[in-house]
């Protein structure tokens, strides 16, 4: 593990406090990806203190969970992080299944893995394009969206929605994966591999991008641990923490995949982790496509779902990191408490400490490398 003090930010902390000014970055700012507001205390272009101010699109999903039945909360889960809706539904569905001891058919589990990984790739593609937009490169996002469109088309043909899928149900799926989808996914995997190489040639190897990300925004493993940052952030700090391994769920234990880690702990490391993850996801999808059995896609679920008293956790590896649902039931049809632990929230919480002494464009590059989705933070 790299300690945070070993990683000196590329810059200096301003030493003349009377010369500082306050810059309001957001809530409407091109780099804020929505409505994040960062209150920057700056010394020239050097950031002395960056205080993220959140809550501009807070929707109180947790309260919504407390006044509707378990099944009625399902559509909400797609809307917390709209870019990795599959994972979020998976976590909620998983928590309820764990509490109610609902058996999920194997076919459904494999289908969940395939769709989740497709969703991860599409989410990473949006991140990739958005990061490049932050860095002033306008073309990659359109290339990424071209490929992402293919994923969205696949998922739309499968479950009817392009973004807020709401595809999983307690005990299985909303509808069966058809052969057209399986074949389309196979074709897509074959299509994406050369495209990923193109991404690498166009952007990853580009000297300007390397200069902009290498050594920028160091976030050490220890910092990640103390702030609870997970996902590509902690993997970019050299810790192979992946919920798919640490708390195995679904059929991930049956699948063979690597957890890409980079020990540099800078923005480039986080970038490379995500790029490698896309390839790993393709690898997982291929295996799942080979192994998916025939059979039912929906298990036996009681018509009126009442969960036993007590609390249950279920965590998944969402595209941005560890997403955990903690449900507390008091034996009724309606949840007593639904806690949504979102990765972006924790990943952003370290921003204030990590961005100290950075120059403005670097701080924005680092923010881009955190892959923030604001509804995910604000919930």
């Amino acid at each position, binding site marked *: 593990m790299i300690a945070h003090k070993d990683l000196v930010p590329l810059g200096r902390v301003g030493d003349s406090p009377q010369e500082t000014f306050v810059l309001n970055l957001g809530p409407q700012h091109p780099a804020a990806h929505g409505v994040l507001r960062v209150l920057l205390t700056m010394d020239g272009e050097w950031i002395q203190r960056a205080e993220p101010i959140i*809550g501009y699109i807070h929707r109180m999903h947790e309260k919504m969970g407390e006044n509707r039945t378990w099944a009625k909360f399902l559509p909400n889960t797609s809307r917390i992080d709209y870019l990795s809706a599959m994972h979020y539904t998976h976590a909620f569905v998983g928590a309820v299944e*764990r509490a109610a*001891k609902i058996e999920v058919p194997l076919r459904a589990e494999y289908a969940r893995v395939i769709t989740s990984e497709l969703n991860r790739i599409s989410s990473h593609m949006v991140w990739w394009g958005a990061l490049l937009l932050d860095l002033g490169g306008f073309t990659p996002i359109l290339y990424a969206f071209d490929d992402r469109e293919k994923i969205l088309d696949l998922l739309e043909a499968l479950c009817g929605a392009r973004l807020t899928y709401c595809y999983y149900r307690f005990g299985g799926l909303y509808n069966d994966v058809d052969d057209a989808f399986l074949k389309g996914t196979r074709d897509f995997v074959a299509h994406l591999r050369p495209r990923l190489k193109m991404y690498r040639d166009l952007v990853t190897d580009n000297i300007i991008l390397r200069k902009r990300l290498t050594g920028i925004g160091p976030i050490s493993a220890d910092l990640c641990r103390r*702030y*609870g940052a*997970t996902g590509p952030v902690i993997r970019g700090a050299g810790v192979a923490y992946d919920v798919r391994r640490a*708390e195995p769920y679904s059929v991930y234990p049956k699948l063979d995949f690597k957890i890409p880690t980079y020990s540099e702990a800078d923005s480039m490391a986080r970038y490379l982790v995500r790029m490698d993850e896309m390839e790993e996801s393709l690898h997982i999808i291929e295996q799942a496509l080979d192994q998916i059995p025939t059979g039912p896609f929906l298990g036996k679920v009681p018509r009126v779902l009442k969960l036993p008293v007590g609390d249950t*956790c279920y965590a998944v590896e969402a595209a941005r990191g560890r997403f955990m649902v*903690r449900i507390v039931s008091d034996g009724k049809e309606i949840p007593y408490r639904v806690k949504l632990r979102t990765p972006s929230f924790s990943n952003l919480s370290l921003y204030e400490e990590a961005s100290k002494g950075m120059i403005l464009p670097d701080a924005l590059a680092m923010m881009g490398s955190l892959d923030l989705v604001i509804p995910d933070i604000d919930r």
Partner: protein
Amino acid sequence: MNPTLEQLTEHFKGLTAAAAVPADGPAESVSPTPVLVVVQAVDFALKGFHLDVAVGPAQVVAAAEVADRAGFGIDSITGVDWLAQNEMEVVYDFFHPTSPLRVVVRARVPRGSPELPTIGGVFPGANWHERETHDFFGIRFTGNPNLKPFLLPEDATFHPLLKDYKP
């Protein structure tokens, strides 16, 4: 570095013997609830975590220090409003970055004066989670420097996740 479940259980049980005074912060304001620490290993496949630790509000910081020493990271902090028992539960989730272990620490505070020390000194990431919990439940974390509305509007004085909250 990676602790086993047994070691952890021992560490957390040790809290009972340790002084129930937090490292810093006004310990007086914390109501002296039972010092007994209940440590319970649970089946991960059923619950989603390995160790369920119930502590008094005063021992929260000490429990967080145990978790910190064992290499845990802060996962989340949240509350549950138990209206019937007239209590509020604060739930601290910890994950371990290098070993598959999950620990849940719970502390119960009376509903009338929900107050307990912050663990921001141990886990700086707890700061935001505590602010969020304060927003939703009105639980005061003494020592947290920034307990102003966070996700709620900046002039919010209500706590929407309380069970008796009427919009």
